[in-house]
């Protein structure tokens, strides 16, 4: 063992020893970040409509002592906690958008041991953890050598295809030591790879001149059903691991009228970029063939397409994250990300995604986060940032 390795292990050991103190200390100031979670969470923030929430983020950054927080051209809110040297920077990112529309009643209920309401886990609590970071670090008496760049990135989910994070990273001109993406769900999550993904929306229309008397004539729902059956018959390889998930189907509004239009949304994820490419071609062919055979109009739109990217499992950032989780009593669950981490790694920065707490009913209106595990989840995040700052996470 070299002296350098020994020193690193001692430094990490000292950080790990401090975790129990951090957990208790964070518990004692929980109001700081829970209040931010509720105030931010009650502002509707659908993808492409995050302005009100990011304005509040800017206000809170300012109130929490950040100088000159900014909204960039993409709509991302960011601010800097200056480090003592500031030669390099650490990115801390949380997506500000939510799967819930503005019409959803964004009212959160705060119980003794939980908070319930739409979007609290994904990602109001993650965003609150980033927003409250200056106050929490101050309370814990922790100062960084690097600048911490805090980012509430917009346009992350669904059709947005990580537009906000990609825009921010493309235009940022700072040397970055590493980045951490913060998600509310779920504690134990350890993502160090961005999964290749293809998001597709298929729209099926029954044309005006459709021959309802022909053999097999049917409305949009029946046709979409047949189409889904065909899609499900596409053989997906076991290696590289691949998966198809149907995420949305809309058609019709009554009991007894065949709808003329329908829409299907699904995602294919794969560890092989070649699988993604070949699937995209197959889907196009299936849609074309289906359209010709049934006399319907079938339009396919590739909403998002991402290539695989990763840092190795043996990367010091991953290794250190696992040590921190272990010390904090968190069991790591390796979970490739389809979110902002993809943009971070593709921009050339080592990064991981962490989950803060345990969650129920994720992405339902009664989404619930548990408070007790949250303090450990927050300590995990802060300790990892400290480890990055003292250069324990570099190859």
């Amino acid at each position, binding site marked *: 063992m070299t002296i350098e390795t020994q020193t690193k292990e001692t430094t990490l050991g000292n950080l790990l020893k401090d975790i129990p103190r951090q957990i208790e200390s964070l518990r004692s100031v929980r*109001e700081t970040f*829970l*209040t931010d979670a*509720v*105030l931010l969470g*009650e502002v509707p923030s659908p993808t492409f409509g995050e302005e009100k929430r990011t304005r509040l983020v800017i206000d809170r950054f300012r109130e929490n002592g950040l100088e000159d927080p900014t909204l960039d051209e993409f709509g991302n809110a960011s601010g800097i906690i200056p480090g003592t040297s500031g030669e390099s920077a650490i990115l801390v990112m949380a997506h500000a958008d939510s799967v819930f529309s503005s019409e959803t009643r964004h009212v959160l209920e705060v*119980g003794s041991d939980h908070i319930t309401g739409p979007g609290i886990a994904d990602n109001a609590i993650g965003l609150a953890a980033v927003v409250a970071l200056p106050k929490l670090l101050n309370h814990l008496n922790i100062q960084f050598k690097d600048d911490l760049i805090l980012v509430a990135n917009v346009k992350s989910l669904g059709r947005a295809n990580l537009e906000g994070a990609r825009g921010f990273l493309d235009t940022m001109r700072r040397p970055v030591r590493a980045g951490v993406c913060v998600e509310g769900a779920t504690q134990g999550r350890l993502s160090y790879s961005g999964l290749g993904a293809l998001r597709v929306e298929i729209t099926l229309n029954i044309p005006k001149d459709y021959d309802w008397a022909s053999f097999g004539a049917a409305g949009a729902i029946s046709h979409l059903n047949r189409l889904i059956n065909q899609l499900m018959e596409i053989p997906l390889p076991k290696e590289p691991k691949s998966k198809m998930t149907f995420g949305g189907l809309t058609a019709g509004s009554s009991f007894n009228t065949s709808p003329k239009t329908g829409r299907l949304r699904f995602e294919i994820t794969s560890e092989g970029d070649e699988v993604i490419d070949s699937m995209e071609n197959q889907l196009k062919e299936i849609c074309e063939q289906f359209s010709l055979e049934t006399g319907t109009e079938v339009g396919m739109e590739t909403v998002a397409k991402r290539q695989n990217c990763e840092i190795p499992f043996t990367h010091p950032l991953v290794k250190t994250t696992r040590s921190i989780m272990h010390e904090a009593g968190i069991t790591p669950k390796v979970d490739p990300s389809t979110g902002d981490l993809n943009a971070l790694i593709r921009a050339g920065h080592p990064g991981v995604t962490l989950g803060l707490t345990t969650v129920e009913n994720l992405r339902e209106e009664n989404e619930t986060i548990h408070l007790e595990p949250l303090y450990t989840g927050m300590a995990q995040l802060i300790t990892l940032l400290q480890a990055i700052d003292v250069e324990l996470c570099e190859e």
Partner: protein
Amino acid sequence: MNEEEKNTWLKKNTFHHGEFWDILKLVEEKEKKGLTISLCIPTLNEEKTIGKEVLILRSELMERYPLVDEFAVIDSGSEDKTLEVAGNYGADTYLASDILPEVGDKRGKGANLWKAIHQLTGDIICYVDADITNIHPRFVYGLVAPLINREEIQYVKAFYDRPLNYSSGLRPSGGGRVTEILTRPLFSLFYPELTNVIQPLSGEYAARREVLEIIPFPIGYGVETSHLLDLYHKFGIEAFGQTDLDRRVHRNQTTNALGKMSFGILQTFINRLHAQGKIDQMPDMETFYRRFEVEDGAYRQIVQKVVEEERPPMIEIEGYRTHRASLSH
């Protein structure tokens, strides 16, 4: 007070919470004047909403900005976890029955507000209902700010925007159903000056201890009405302020519950009419009905003459009697 003076009061003593966004400045002013502020939430089975109210108000107005010096939840004997949740987030919790036990226990919101005067220490007491689902610090700083800034103001009431869509920029503004159907017509008849209070029944208000300790408190629905009538009787309209707190989202009441509420308010109202000699020596009835409109954010009182003329019983009309007599022949 003539119409012009009334509109002056409306302009001078009607505030918007946005005027007081600089909470740090309020804290400095409060400290300069040596004032202390207590916040009281009266509760009965409010476990669904109380956690958020205590979390946000305490965190923002005691920890982040030390505007509030004391934060208490006074409970009428909840059967759910109201007190546990409130205590968990740092409120001082009391059972109303434990405060001044020698005066006995009468269950009702008004009793909790009354006992708060004894239990809490602040020079200013701010009352906030427990069922606000969109709670925000403005619900407190918007009410205490006029009391901190203006010594002549004794009592500040909240009013809220009720977001209704109208095709023109003009829309009616005011309170809920009981306010518009019962209280405003009664005030228009007997206390026209008080019609300047846009939402007389709102459950959020702040007042100086000196005025709270000299007025009686109905324990039920009449407490807000009695405050207005009693303080108006003692100090006149100049003692009041009102603050626009934007939107308030709360539970919707059934028509039955509103009927019960109206019954309580009427009792309080008639008691005051008796006490102030307005029943025995009925003054000439006012014939102006007063309501509010808001245009481009400015509130304006609309006065309409409504005279309920009456016709005598038909039998007293000669033409009718003659007509009926002709039919019987």
